[in-house]
């Protein structure tokens, strides 16, 4: 990938190509919207207004973006080491167990301690779920993509089993835990602002967003400024080179995937501890898969991931508003747009590149003549 990026200046590679790919995905979505008899422009307006037009909208947008920052970072960390972790979804789902453990069984502790425990446990559970595929890939050469897909399904079976048989209160029918005690949840940004004397609109945006930004910075430092990050990138760039340099390839593979799983596990902080205040079925709701698109669009850089995550968050929130406004359109349109973005920004990534490179070459040649 990096060999071909040489055809373009870096800013074109990181800015123009993603924007063009995004435009293509939106164009295709526009066609679908037009086909069901709505005006794509009007819908785009509703979505933008819904996502950014009010304090509440922005709150929701950032709330959803938090999920995507975690899963995008998770996927990117593994990708730096050349590992395709499609199992972030399952790792995030299992991470929910860690949060539930902290919030349900340690509720007698003060809030900051519970929050710390939840961070530790969700990371530990997510990392543990990544460990087996990681070990099998590193030691026995199992195909990582297939093992992690299988582990997503196993995670889903495990969670149904645990929720139905152990975690749900005996009197309840719904497969979900009881609601966490107020001190076992993450404070909402709005409450914190209220405490500081600032009034902002009601939304589920909570401290997990701040933690996500801290993680983004942390991952950036780790990957670009530490020895471990250097080794991970070497492994990703060339496995033989890493082996030749005497790097512990097996250990690096396992570390990369467990880090990825831990970051994925943090998704539960936002969804389970920050907003719903209970563990419930399928709370990971595909965020793990969209994280792949977020990481690819963000070029695996933390800043890019945060921006791409905000974009996907806006799509989520705007889509909800759109479904509310237009009876013909359902929230499924958001899933469709996401799929199209994954296609254009991920799989068709190389489609527009040669044309853009040619344009650049042409303008450079013109510049030299003049």
């Amino acid at each position, binding site marked *: 990938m990096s060999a071909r990026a040489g055809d373009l200046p870096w800013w074109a590679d990181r800015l123009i190509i993603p924007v063009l790919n995004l435009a293509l995905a939106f164009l295709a979505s526009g066609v679908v919207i037009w086909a069901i008899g709505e005006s794509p422009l009007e819908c785009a307006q509703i979505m933008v207004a819904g996502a950014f037009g009010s304090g509440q909208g922005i709150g929701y947008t950032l709330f959803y973006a938090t999920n995507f920052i975690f899963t995008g970072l998770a996927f990117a960390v593994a990708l730096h080491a050349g590992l395709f972790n499609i199992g972030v979804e399952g790792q995030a789902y299992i991470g929910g167990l860690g949060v539930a453990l902290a919030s349900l069984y340690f509720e007698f502790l003060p809030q900051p301690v519970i929050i710390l425990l939840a961070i530790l446990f969700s990371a530990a559970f997510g990392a543990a779920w990544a460990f087996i595929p990681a070990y099998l890939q590193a030691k026995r050469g199992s195909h990582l993509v297939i093992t992690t897909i299988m*582990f997503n399904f196993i995670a889903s079976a495990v969670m149904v089993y645990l929720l139905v048989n152990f975690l749900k209160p005996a009197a309840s029918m719904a497969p979900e835990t009881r609601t966490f005690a107020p001190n076992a949840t993450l404070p909402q940004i709005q409450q914190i602002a209220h405490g500081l004397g600032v009034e902002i609109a009601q939304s589920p945006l909570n401290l997990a967003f701040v933690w996500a930004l801290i993680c983004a910075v942390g991952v950036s430092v780790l990957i670009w400024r530490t020895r471990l990050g250097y080794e991970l990138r070497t492994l990703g760039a060339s496995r033989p080179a890493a082996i030749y340099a005497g790097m512990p390839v097996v250990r690096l593979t396992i570390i990369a995937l467990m880090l990825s799983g831990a970051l994925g596990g943090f998704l539960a902080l936002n969804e389970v501890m920050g907003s719903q205040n209970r563990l419930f079925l399928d709370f990971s709701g595909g965020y793990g898969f969209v994280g792949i698109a977020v990481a690819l669009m963000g070029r695996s850089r933390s800043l890019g991931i945060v921006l791409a995550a905000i974009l996907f968050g806006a799509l989520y929130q705007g889509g909800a508003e759109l479904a509310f406004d237009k009876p013909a359109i*359902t929230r499924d349109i958001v899933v469709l747009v996401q799929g199209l973005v994954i296609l254009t920004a*991920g799989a068709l990534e190389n489609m527009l590149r040669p044309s853009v490179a040619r344009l650049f070459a042409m303008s450079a040649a013109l510049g030299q003549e003049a």
Partner: protein
Amino acid sequence: MEYLDTIAQVLASTIRLSVPLLFACLAGLYSERSGVFDIGLEGKMLIAAFSAGAIASVGHSPWLGLLAAVGASVAFALLHGFAVITHRGDQIVSGLAINVIAVGLTAQVGSFWFEQGGQTPQLEQGERFLEVTLPGADALAAVPVVGQVYAQILSGHSVLVYFAFAMVPITWYVLFRTRFGLRLRAVGENPAAADTAGVSVTRMRYAAVVCCGVLCGFAGAYLSIAQSAGFTRNMTAGKGFIALAALVFAKWQPVPAMGACLLFGLLDAVAIRLQGTPIPGIGVVPVQLIQAVPYALTVALLAGFIGRATPPKAGGVPYVKER
């Protein structure tokens, strides 16, 4: 005698449940043997199931439904091919995109078109593939064992079921006894060598991807217009991934693929049957445990704990003619 009936029922439902897996698994076999990984089996099945349900209901014919299913699925397969063969995109990302697009598209278009929350209308008798009784099944039903197996287990399925099992020897023959099959496998193992021998890698891979699309079309159509009477939201529910597991489990071979699909179908049938009923001596087995078995088995196989599964060598790698 009563438990014999139960066994017969479980085996008959094993066959029914393994059919969509078998179609999808064979579909994946064509694609992956040519070097194109396909985790988008699920999405293609879903779009096919929706198209079949919608068109069978609108056109009042299961055959039109089947045609639409195959058409839609092939269109998605070509999209995958366009991304990964023509533009050398990442095969996993493309497959994932197709799965996500299929979920969104079927639900959005379905709820707009039929206004039933994403379902297609309930199909009438003549709009779906009905069970056919094999010749002589009624006459033989009284014959112990042989007749019972024939009448209760093998007879009484839809045409698509028999077609699915017929596809197993056909696929074996096509892949291992024809020139087309040899070339298809060659571009999946060593595309550069096949290219040198004058085989167009691009064309072979497109052909394989189209075969995959056709069979996924059958898989989806079976779900919505043979097994059930209409499409429901997300009705594939991971079957495409179980088929993928079966493909790995069968080590990318057609006849073992049938075995793997029947095994996974049996697990599913047993899970449905056992829902909450205790087994003497063991107690209640959690349904989720049985559901997780195919995935766990596949992981164990991939790890080399039970045999060794070696994927096609060039799988997942886009072919670049020259640098």
